[in-house]
Structure formats: structure tokens, C-alpha cells
């Protein structure tokens, strides 16, 4: 039995897959641009990793007062994307909502690859990733949100890989079972990631119930943006009828979820500012007047996509594909602000002057190496997706529609 047959027995791969097919693609300007962009980003990431391996955390701009930086934000960005794709794809083959089953394989593959990219980023942020794997098992800290988040994400990844394998084998019974498992564990893992920040009693701006809940909502919105981008690119904006119908549905869903998000954010900031509680109200006012929030999160991430989705009743598909680009930039700023804003208020207990003047806000801007690894990982993700698209048949079959 050849290797190809052995692999085919586990998970069916495309008949036309070969090394040659892997390297050949239609040379349209968009495809060539994407190829250069992805490889360029990946090389940039590789350079960053090379410097990190030589210099460790000294290559980063994280400090005693601001120990978490861009890498943590980018990890969150990727795993939010993964959870979002998983949740939206479960509408079809877990909840059997008509019209959603056709995205199953492509969305789950997207979920697998985005979380792999997230793990790649966090591997270069955690100081001792090998120690982590060992002591996560032999010395589990059950009161730690990071332990639960990491462990549940490990189980989640296993589930969605199995879900994909059974989807590819057209085994809808098992794929549904692992789909349910992936969904439940994914939501648990993701809300735990929110609680990593929500549990910080020392940080009044982050502490509380908001993040664990908001993470699930913003994950679904991220999933919708990514589906617009993935299908916009897959069909070059000329959609077959089933896909067009599906995109109309998620266009409406996007308007609804963005309205809920804007509502959530409104109350989050009102409650944060009201009463003027130190380290909460002042930080919230600072966030509200900062450019990353106003232009990144609010304008690009929420307002532009919402206005397009709402005024067109979700039917301006092409405009929504482009709005999803601004949407994803906005989502990036949501993650960056989440990490950065949580650490804004200085906690230099009684250190009024000894080592440095007490800052009004803790200052942080990522180093070039942090930017290289974090943004470069988008290239890694796109390359993985390209390979997966060549290797597996990610398009829907008639059977997918009926299941």
C-alpha cells in the first residue's frame, strides 16, 4: 500500500494533489499578490523567530510593569478566529440550521489553521514552552485560568481535527459528535481565555464578568468576517447560488451581532466610567479617547461593517467582503487594546521616585521583533490554508447540503 493510499484511508486527499500541483496556481494579479504577501510575511516571521532564539525576551519590549505585549494580543487574535469559525460552522452540522452545512469543511479547516498559528505565536512568547507541556500535566494549577484555557484548547484542537477527518470522510454521525465536543470545549476554552483577564483582581479595568462573555460574542463576529474573506477569495466575488444564499444569511447575522456588541461596549464603558472609581474610570476615559479604540475598534471593527450590513439588510455581499478587511483590522485592535489597556494603570506600589518617575500611564510599544513574529504569523496562516486547500477537497458536496 502506497503512502498516498494509507493517508487516504485516514483522511481523503485530493486525487490531483502532488508537489507540482502544490506549487502551481493561476497567475492572476490577486493570486500573485497574495503569494508574495504570504511568503514575505512568513519570511518576516522567520527572521523574528531567529532573533528571538538568539536573544530571548530581550528582543521584546515587555517590561516588569507591562509583561504582556503584542504576542499575547496576536495569540488571542488567532484563537478568537478559530473559536469563531468553529461556532459558525457548528450552526450547520451540529444545529442543522439550513444553508450552513456547506461551509463545514472549509470553516473547520480554517479553525484548525488559525489556532495552529496562534500556538506558533504563543510558543515564542511563553519563556519555557517545553516546561509548560510537562508541568501542565504533572503539576496542574487548577485555580489558574491559563491552565484551563491551555488544556481546553488542546482538547478542542484534537476534537476539531477529528471533526474535520470525519467530515472529509463524509461520516456525518461522528463528525457531528466531535463537532458538538469541539463546540462545547471551544466555548469553554475561549471564555476561560476571557477569564484570564477577567480574574485579574489587581486590574479593575479588566476584572469582572465582561471579558468571558464578550469573547464569545466577538469570536462569532470574527468568524463571520473570516468567512466573508475566505469565500470572497475562493469565488473571486462571483458566488454560486448556495454560497450567495449563505452569505446573505451571515450578512444579516453580522448586523445583529455587531448591534449586540455595540450595545455591550456601550454599557461596559458607562459602568466603567460611572462613579469615577480609580484605575477603572480613568483608564476607561483614556481608552475612549485613544486612537486605537476610536479608529481601530470602533470605526473599522464595528461601525463600518455594521452600517453596510444594516443598511443593505445583509445583502451587499461584495461590500461586506471589503468591510471584513476593515473588520479584521478592527478585531486586531480589539485584541491589542484588551491586552494593553489591562496594564495601562501603573501599579508601582509606593515607588514614587526611586527608580523612575511614576508614569501616568504605563508605556508600551511592541519591538520590531514582536511585530515581525506577530504580523508575520498571518503569512504562516495563509500558507497553511493554501496547502490545506490543495491537499483536501474543502468545497461542499451535495451530501453536505442534505446533512
Amino acid at each position, binding site marked *: 500500500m502506497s503512502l498516498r493510499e494509507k493517508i487516504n484511508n485516514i483522511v481523503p486527499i485530493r486525487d490531483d494533489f502532488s508537489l507540482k500541483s502544490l506549487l502551481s496556481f493561476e497567475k492572476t494579479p490577486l493570486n500573485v499578490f497574495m503569494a508574495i504577501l504570504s511568503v514575505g510575511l512568513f519570511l518576516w516571521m522567520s527572521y523574528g523567530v531567529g532573533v528571538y532564539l538568539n536573544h530571548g525576551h530581550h528582543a521584546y519590549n515587555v517590561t516588569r510593569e507591562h509583561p504582556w505585549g503584542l504576542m499575547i494580543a496576536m495569540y488571542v487574535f488567532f484563537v478568537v478566529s478559530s473559536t469563531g469559525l468553529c461556532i459558525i460552522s457548528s450552526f450547520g452540522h451540529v444545529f442543522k440550521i439550513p444553508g450552513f452545512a456547506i461551509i463545514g469543511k472549509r470553516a473547520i479547516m480554517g479553525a484548525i489553521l488559525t489556532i495552529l498559528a496562534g500556538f506558533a505565536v504563543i510558543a515564542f512568547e511563553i*519563556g519555557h514552552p517545553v516546561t509548560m507541556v510537562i508541568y501542565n500535566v504533572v503539576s*496542574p494549577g487548577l485555580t489558574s485560568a491559563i491552565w484551563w484555557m491551555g488544556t481546553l484548547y488542546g482538547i478542542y484542537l484534537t476534537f476539531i481535527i477529528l471533526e474535520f477527518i470525519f467530515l472529509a470522510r463524509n461520516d456525518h454521525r461522528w463528525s457531528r459528535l466531535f463537532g458538538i465536543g469541539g463546540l462545547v470545549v471551544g466555548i469553554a476554552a475561549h471564555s476561560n481565555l476571557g477569564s484570564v483577564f477577567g480574574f485579574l483582581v489587581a486590574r479593575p479595568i479588566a476584572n469582572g464578568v465582561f471579558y468571558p462573555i464578550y469573547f464569545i460574542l466577538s469570536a462569532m463576529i470574527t468568524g463571520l468576517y473570516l468567512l466573508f474573506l475566505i469565500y470572497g477569495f475562493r469565488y473571486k466575488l462571483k458566488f454560486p447560488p448556495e454560497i450567495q444564499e449563505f452569505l446573505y444569511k451571515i450578512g444579516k447575522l453580522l448586523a445583529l451581532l455587531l448591534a449586540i456588541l455595540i450595545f455591550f461596549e456601550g454599557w461596559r464603558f458607562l459602568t466603567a466610567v460611572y462613579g469615577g472609581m480609580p484605575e477603572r474610570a480613568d483608564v476607561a476615559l483614556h481608552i475612549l479617547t485613544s486612537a486605537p479604540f476610536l479608529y481601530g475598534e470602533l470605526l473599522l471593527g464595528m461601525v463600518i461593517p455594521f452600517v453596510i450590513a444594516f443598511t443593505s439588510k445583509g445583502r451587499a455581499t461584495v461590500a461586506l467582503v471589503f468591510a471584513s478587511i476593515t473588520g479584521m483590522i478592527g478585531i486586531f485592535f480589539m485584541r491589542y487594546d484588551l491586552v494593553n489597556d489591562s496594564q495601562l494603570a501603573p501599579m508601582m*506600589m*509606593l515607588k514614587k521616585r526611586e527608580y523612575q518617575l511614576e508614569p501616568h500611564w504605563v508605556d508600551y510599544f511592541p519591538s520590531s521583533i514582536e511585530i515581525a513574529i506577530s504580523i508575520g504569523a498571518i503569512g504562516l496562516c495563509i500558507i497553511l490554508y493554501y496547502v490545506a486547500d490543495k491537499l483536501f477537497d474543502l468545497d461542499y458536496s451535495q451530501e453536505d447540503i442534505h446533512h
Partner: protein
Amino acid sequence: MANYGMALDYKNCINCSACETACKEENGILMGADKHRIWVGVGEIEGQYPLLDITSNAFHPSQCQQCENAPCEEVCPTHATYYDDNGIVRVDPDKCILCSYCMNACPYDARYVDDRTMTVDKCNFCSDTRLARGETTTACQTTCPTKVRTFGDLDDPESEISILLRTREHYSLKTHLGTKPKLFYLT
């Protein structure tokens, strides 16, 4: 086994920094502005002459508060941060994965990265050095010329610190967070 704590008669502090130097010397702490287990905060005189606010010109020695309910211990994913038999919050560098969660969770900014082991370090009341040798003092306490610091067993009613805490008013930092600090500032 003891339940160690420290009382600080902070108004006696003259900001000579001998405690910081002794801590670095005893425990082999690296040099560098953010590599310190203990510190003395300096409040400058506020106001315009002649209405100067001399009470603002105070010295505030501080360090890890050795919380009884330590947020850093609670968030550690691998139990690298743990309470030892003396009630001291300590770090096992072999288990630390440098996720920095403890640095974020500590309300007292008491943790920093030791660049030699690339793990998170903190004050451990000289557990690796003086207490390990059987002594019952810390370097910062022994060296202090104005006797700001009193280190001892909170469970022993006859210890100097227990007597001090019974007889002098004192406060702790950020007690509203429920951390139950074992550093006491005498007023």
C-alpha cells in the same frame, strides 16, 4: 514551622538604601533598574514655597507582601508559585514557564524576571539563603540602621513582631482585594 511576616516602622526610614543593597548581595540579585526584590519609594515635597507639604516627603520601603491569599499563587498554571511551610510565597524556577501571569496578577508590582534563569522571581524573606542556613533574620532587616524592619513568627505570641502588632497601630496595603498581606506598616 513558623508563619513569617514583617512589620515596617516606615517613618524611621532614612532612605539609605542599605536594605536594597543587602538584599542584592545576600540573594545574588542582578543589577538593573527593574531587577529588585525590595525598594524604597520616595515622596517628594509637594506644594509651592512657603506652603510646602512636608508630610508628602516620606520614604516608603516595600516589597512582596507575602499574601496569605496571594493572587500570584492562584493564577500560576504549574504551581511554580507556592506557599512553603513557613507561609512564605516562593517560586520553584524548575516549574516556572514564564507566562508572566503572576506579574500581571500581583497587585503590588513585586515580581520581576530573573535574566539568568528566565523565570519570575520575588522576595522570599531570604528563604534560599539565611533561613536555609538556619538563621531567623532577613538581610534587609539585619542591615537597617534605624531598625525599620522587624521580621518574625506571627504565630508566636512572644515574638517581637507579635508584640509590636499588639501594641502599635498598623495598616496593610490594598487589603480590600482580600490578599491578606503579611507586611504591616506601623503608624
